[in-house]
């Protein structure tokens, strides 16, 4: 039992103390058994307070520490490190959450919040009394990282990890590398095309012997945990042995009788069952869409490298960390949403961008020349009624950039922007200024009075009550309506479920904390980067990819990984081996051993994950979990009542 416990109660600026009387909490706990020091502090996590804590621990020879502050997800490690710096074993630290679960949750009831905070701090003190000095488990960490998603974020992360001499497996579900960026033409601010960016990254990657790229590959199983993820990767065949001779390839494509909507061009064009998205795409080998191939054999007759005997492969990969970079999908408007799929000349921004790239001399839509273009913003983003309440961040810039491009490339184009307020943050504001200066018309409405698209006498009309001109009703006759659609999570995000990755309220993968732990997830060893985490532009995606690569590498760089020493322990006297615990254990961590004439359960600490599933099934209550023992839990319950 601890006899010299130090307790720190944090104001968190006013986040806690505006609703919880922290001084009252301090007074209520200062005479608790074992407490020898009780302080309040404005910011417990500040450097100055951390230094004070180290001094307090040393001066007062504290043997247990409690900090009552924010969620332990944010600062448990911070204060454990403080203990270590003061030469106190870090497992003698207990964290009490009086912000997320007290001051914020009960900001409507200050008395109730203060009373609850007192009980929670008392419970933490009760727990720390029983805390023991422990040593973290040490496991061998596989020095390799699997990156799931071969877009710009995935490729940037792969290069960063390769630079650190870390083997990388880059796993891309599609048959070609590059993700969404490959679908983009020139980009702000460099005027590089998406294809050029992808090519540059790919050419860099293929020179690296420690990077293995899989395309048409999908993770289908994940077993293990941080330091030792065992992945099963399914590789779909391309049905092509190697690169076809250039002439033969085109002849084989031309000969294919199957015509399908081309998803790469968002279905505004068609492709064949043997295809590549664009001529220089990586890997520079086409693929056969076997689901839609009729096996007519015409391509086989032309190209000797077509091989329908290729089979699906299953590979086993063992890595220490997994970096998710699975990207986003563009929002698909619902039928009728601003005339989508009901009015002929309504397209989405991604379709429009492909149209600009694929059109030459004249911008044609359904064989009719386009001159007046109406852009309707925030489609699928900032929804007042709908799932996507968030701003997709990139779409204002992308729409304005596209409107500038279209005006430069084609003559007599007039752009009309129906906005909800332009959000071209940072340097992107330059584009907005340029667009305004060249005569684009900007109108704005609130969320409760969105523009209306209607078809009147064979004309497509967009109507708005423009708040920039005092609510004046303005109508525009448009040859083409571009719905400026935002980003949504991938429709098929099943790979996230394989890793049990939590999602945020926006349904993108969720980080632990957007500022303090921005690429870490609640699943140890799995990091997230790029637009799978939420809407981002390329620069932001690349930055998060570098951050995630560094974090993933930090898990495995030493080759040895420290994990929580939370394992089950067996009371040898109480155990009389009945096999219940062994049957309940999902990790086969429990076996029987003979001690003298007695058979009892034995825990393999290297395998035990500390789930506690063996605890409640024991008929003699002979198993406890370190740090969650019955005496700790019950003493906490005693303090909470």
């Amino acid at each position, binding site marked *: 039992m601890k006899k010299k416990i130090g307790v720190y109660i944090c104001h968190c600026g006013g986040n806690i103390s505006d609703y919880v009387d922290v001084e009252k909490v301090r007074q209520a706990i200062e005479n608790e058994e074992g407490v020898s020091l009780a302080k309040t502090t404005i910011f417990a996590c500040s450097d100055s307070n951390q230094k004070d804590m180290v001094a307090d621990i040393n001066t007062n020879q504290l043997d247990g520490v409690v900090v009552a502050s924010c969620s332990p997800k944010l600062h448990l490690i911070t204060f454990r490190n403080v203990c270590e710096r003061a030469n106190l074993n870090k497992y003698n630290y207990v964290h009490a959450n009086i912000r997320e679960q007290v001051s914020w949750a009960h900001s409507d009831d200050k008395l109730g919040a203060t009373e609850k905070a007192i009980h929670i701090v008392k419970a933490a003190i009760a727990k720390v009394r029983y805390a023991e000095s422990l040593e973290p488990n040490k496991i061998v960490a596989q020095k390799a990282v699997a990156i799931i998603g071969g877009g710009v974020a995935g490729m940037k992360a792969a290069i960063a990890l390769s630079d650190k001499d870390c083997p990388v497996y880059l796993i891309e579900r599609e048959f070609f590398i590059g993700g969404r960026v490959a679908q983009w033409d020139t980009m702000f601010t460099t005027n590089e095309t998406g294809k050029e960016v992808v090519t540059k990254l790919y050419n860099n990657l293929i020179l690296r012997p420690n990077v293995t790229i899989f395309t048409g590959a999908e993770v289908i199983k994940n077993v293990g945990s941080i330091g030792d993820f065992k992945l099963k990767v399914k590789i779909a065949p391309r049905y092509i042995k190697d690169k076809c001779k250039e002439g033969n390839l085109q002849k084989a494509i031309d000969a294919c009788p199957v015509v399908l909507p081309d998803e790469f061009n968002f279905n505004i064009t068609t492709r064949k069952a043997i295809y590549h998205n664009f001529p220089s795409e990586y890997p520079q080998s086409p693929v056969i869409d076997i689901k839609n191939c009729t096996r007519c054999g015409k391509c086989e007759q032309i190209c000797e490298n077509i091989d329908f005997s290729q089979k699906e492969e299953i590979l086993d990969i063992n890595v220490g960390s997994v970096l998710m970079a699975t990207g986003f999908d563009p929002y698909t408007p619902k039928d009728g949403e601003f005339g989508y799929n009901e009015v002929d000349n309504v397209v989405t921004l991604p379709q429009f961008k492909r149209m600009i790239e694929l059109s030459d001399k004249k911008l044609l839509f359904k064989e009719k020349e386009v001159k007046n273009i109406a852009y309707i913003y925030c489609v699928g983003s900032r929804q007042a009624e709908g799932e996507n309440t968030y701003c997709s961040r990139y779409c204002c810039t992308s729409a304005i950039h596209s409107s500038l491009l279209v005006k430069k490339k084609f003559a007599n184009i007039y752009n009309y922007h129906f906005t909800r307020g332009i959000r071209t943050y940072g340097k992107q504001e330059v584009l907005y200024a340029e667009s305004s200066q060249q005569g684009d018309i900007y109108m704005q409405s609130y969320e409760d009075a969105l523009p209306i698209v209607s078809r009147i006498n064979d004309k497509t009309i967009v109507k708005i009550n423009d708040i920039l001109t005092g609510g004046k009703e303005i109508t525009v006759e448009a040859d083409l309506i571009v719905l400026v659609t935002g980003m949504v999570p991938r429709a098929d995000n099943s790979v996230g479920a394989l890793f049990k990755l939590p999602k945020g309220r926006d349904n993108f993968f*969720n980080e632990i904390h957007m500022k303090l732990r921005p690429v870490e997830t609640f699943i140890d060893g799995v990091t997230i980067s790029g637009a799978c985490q939420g809407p981002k532009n390329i620069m932001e995606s690349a930055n998060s990819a570098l951050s995630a690569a560094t974090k993933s590498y930090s898990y495995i760089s030493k080759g040895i990984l420290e994990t929580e020493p939370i394992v089950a322990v067996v009371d040898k006297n109480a155990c009389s081996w009945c096999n219940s615990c062994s049957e309940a254990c999902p990790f086969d961590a429990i076996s029987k051993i003979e001690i003298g004439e007695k058979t009892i359960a034995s825990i393999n600490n290297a395998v035990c994950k500390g789930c506690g*599933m063996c605890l409640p099934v024991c008929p003699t209550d002979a198993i406890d979990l370190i740090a969650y023992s019955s005496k700790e839990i019950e003493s906490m319950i005693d303090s*909470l009542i």
Partner: protein
Amino acid sequence: MAEKNMKSAKILVFSTEKISDPAIDMAGLLKLHYPPTVYTITVPCSSGIKSRWIMHAYEKGFDGVFIAADGSDCIFGESCTEKTGHIVSRTHELMKQNKIEPARLKMAAICSVCSESFVKQIKSFNEYLLKNSNS
């Protein structure tokens, strides 16, 4: 059962470190209010909760116990839902033996973003417990 005419029932929540605790934290972040007499003890997994802990809570005066279960999101395996269900069944038997109304133990799967669901469940459980205590 606790004193009658109380404003809110005393509820002990067993939440899980990786799954339901983030949801409860987010409820606070979103200022989704629930009674301040709801206390949380965090465990690694809902299928590791001992019946004796739950019984201890009733013995000490908690009106209700709520298991914010991992459900199918459990990081330790797919058997979690079934095993947590068994814990509830076993504890219900113990409650009956001790003449404690089984409905005072409630379990619901709370995912890492189920903040609104958590608050809704807790409010409804609180109302049930209050109604039951006054009847």
